[in-house]
């Protein structure tokens, strides 16, 4: 990297360090950050106000807010936004609920705790690409395990369901995947919060004759409220950024662009139809929406907790 040569020259480095070397230390990192994060952020805002010409950006035409107007009035975008909001409404509570259960169970004095923990974390570290392909196979129409269980084991349906061919049905594996992949991570965060609760509180509750359910609702839940708020906000942001699973499982919004999420639509408009202005406007709308939702959530959910 950039700094590779300087580091070898120790005495030079030492001198700079002694005298106001702080900027020198920050230079490589800040340089990368400005070039590949901050500048793109501003550049993208600018693009969203232009009919962007990729071949010759200089001759791009300024169009004001018309990219934004175009996005908001696009029925495909509205469908994508709907799919994304449903995804958030399903996967955020789903992850929280299961993660809380797993964390409470792991908090108990049980054998094989390490094994259980490792097992639950596996989904967190595996790449989205891989787990999406696995879910595609599990939900495949002809020989998928899910159809087998539903039809031949539980007898809930009479015919095999073609999950992946239907723009509404494909949302079911996508939402289940979102929950399944996220539970392990949230459970770890919950577990850390649970371990911070002083055990004396539970002991006092037992003396007062409280049952397990009462211990959970009267002690655990109120005390982990800050963690709960944190998770709701972070998971919601994550849910609105759903991208890889949708892109791969629906093969880019097929059929008829009905199964898009916001970001898969952004990708297709930008890199397939080369409408960079539309794409940038979409990502800024998404960012604004996420920001708004986060602020509302924090305002609504945050309350001081006293120990």
């Amino acid at each position, binding site marked *: *990297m950039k700094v590779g040569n300087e580091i070898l020259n120790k005495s030079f480095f030492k001198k700079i360090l002694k005298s106001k070397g702080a900027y020198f230390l920050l230079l490589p*990192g800040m340089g990368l950050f400005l070039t590949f994060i901050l500048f793109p952020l501003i550049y993208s805002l600018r693009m969203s106000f232009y009919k962007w010409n990729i071949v010759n950006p200089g001759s791009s035409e300024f169009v004001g807010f018309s990219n934004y107007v175009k996005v908001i009035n696009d029925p495909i975008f509205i469908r994508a936004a709907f799919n994304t909001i449903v995804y958030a409404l399903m996967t955020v509570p789903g992850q929280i609920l299961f993660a809380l259960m797993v964390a409470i169970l792991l908090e108990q004095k049980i054998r094989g705790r390490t094994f259980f923990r490792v097992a639950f974390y596996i989904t967190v570290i595996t790449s989205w690409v*891989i787990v999406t392909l696995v879910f595609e196979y599990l939900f495949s129409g002809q*020989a998928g395990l899910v159809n087998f269980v539903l039809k031949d084991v539980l007898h809930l349906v009479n015919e095999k369901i073609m999950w992946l061919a239907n723009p509404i049905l494909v949302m079911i594996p996508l939402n289940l995947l979102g929950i399944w992949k996220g539970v392990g991570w949230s459970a770890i965060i919950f577990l850390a919060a649970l371990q911070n609760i002083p055990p004396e509180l539970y002991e006092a509750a037992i003396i007062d004759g409280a049952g397990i359910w009462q211990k959970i609702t009267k002690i655990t839940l109120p005390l982990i409220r800050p963690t709960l708020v944190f998770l709701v906000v972070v998971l919601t942001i994550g849910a609105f950024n759903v991208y890889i699973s949708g892109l791969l499982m629906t093969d880019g919004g097929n059929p008829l662009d009905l199964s898009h999420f916001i970001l898969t639509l952004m990708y297709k408009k930008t890199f397939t139809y080369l409408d960079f202005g539309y*794409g940038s406007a979409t990502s800024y709308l998404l960012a604004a929406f996420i920001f708004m939702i986060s602020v509302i959530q924090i305002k609504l959910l945050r309350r001081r907790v006293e120990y």
Partner: protein
Amino acid sequence: MLITKEEKTFRIITYVLLIFGVVITLLPFLYMISVSFKSQIYTFEYPPRLIPRNPTLENYINALSKDLFGRNFLNSLFVATATTISTVFISALMAYAFSRMQFPGKEVLFYILLLGMMIPPVMLIIPQFIIAKYLHLLNSLWGLIVVYVAVTLSMQTFLLRSFFETIPRELEEAVLVDGGSNWVIFTKVILPLSKPGLSVVAIFTFLYAWDEFPWAHVAIRESSRRTLPVAIALFQNQYLTQWGLVFAATTVASIPVIIVFIIFQRYFIQGFVTTGLRR
């Protein structure tokens, strides 16, 4: 302590639920591995079988000899390693400056850096694409590395700075009394005492770079320069129904991740919890 009857029942329910949860969690992976050992005729058999009939290694042999799989694997290894080394180094320097040095504009720079933690990376793909094009970084592994370092830098610097803050300053005062410089403090005091923090940074950066898909998907067009996630996604497109082959590839791609994970298991927990880092 008293064990009530209610608690005993609760303990049994605990085990039942946990085992059920683990089955749901692991079954897709076991199934993936199982299919990777099935020959093509059995991948669409109905009813599906978890234990493969006549298990075979042909998928692994085919996948590894197919196209550029080996090349893609090495690309991923190079990108993930270079990203990790650069990130650990650069973020440690920055964290030291933010934690131990005084300079004008410190607050402002730190808050600007924190902004990076809040921006969803996919949102930046379009402008990054254009910038990378200008800098001739498209279709290059270095184009992946610089963006990965930039994306993960905020989080890792923040993490290391918090870690450095927990190191008592008396040690440094002793070094200063002995006539040592900031450089001595950094290399002889801070870094050796920060091994757990540096490990967390290294692990998370490696996994992030190993698994990253959206940017690599956009930035690399030439098949010989693809990293594994992109190669596998396109592999599946190309060999649509050859699930055995696809899952042999995904199983091989998962191996480094699982190894890193099992070796550094306890650091993971620490990392997740202290940073709220999400992958």
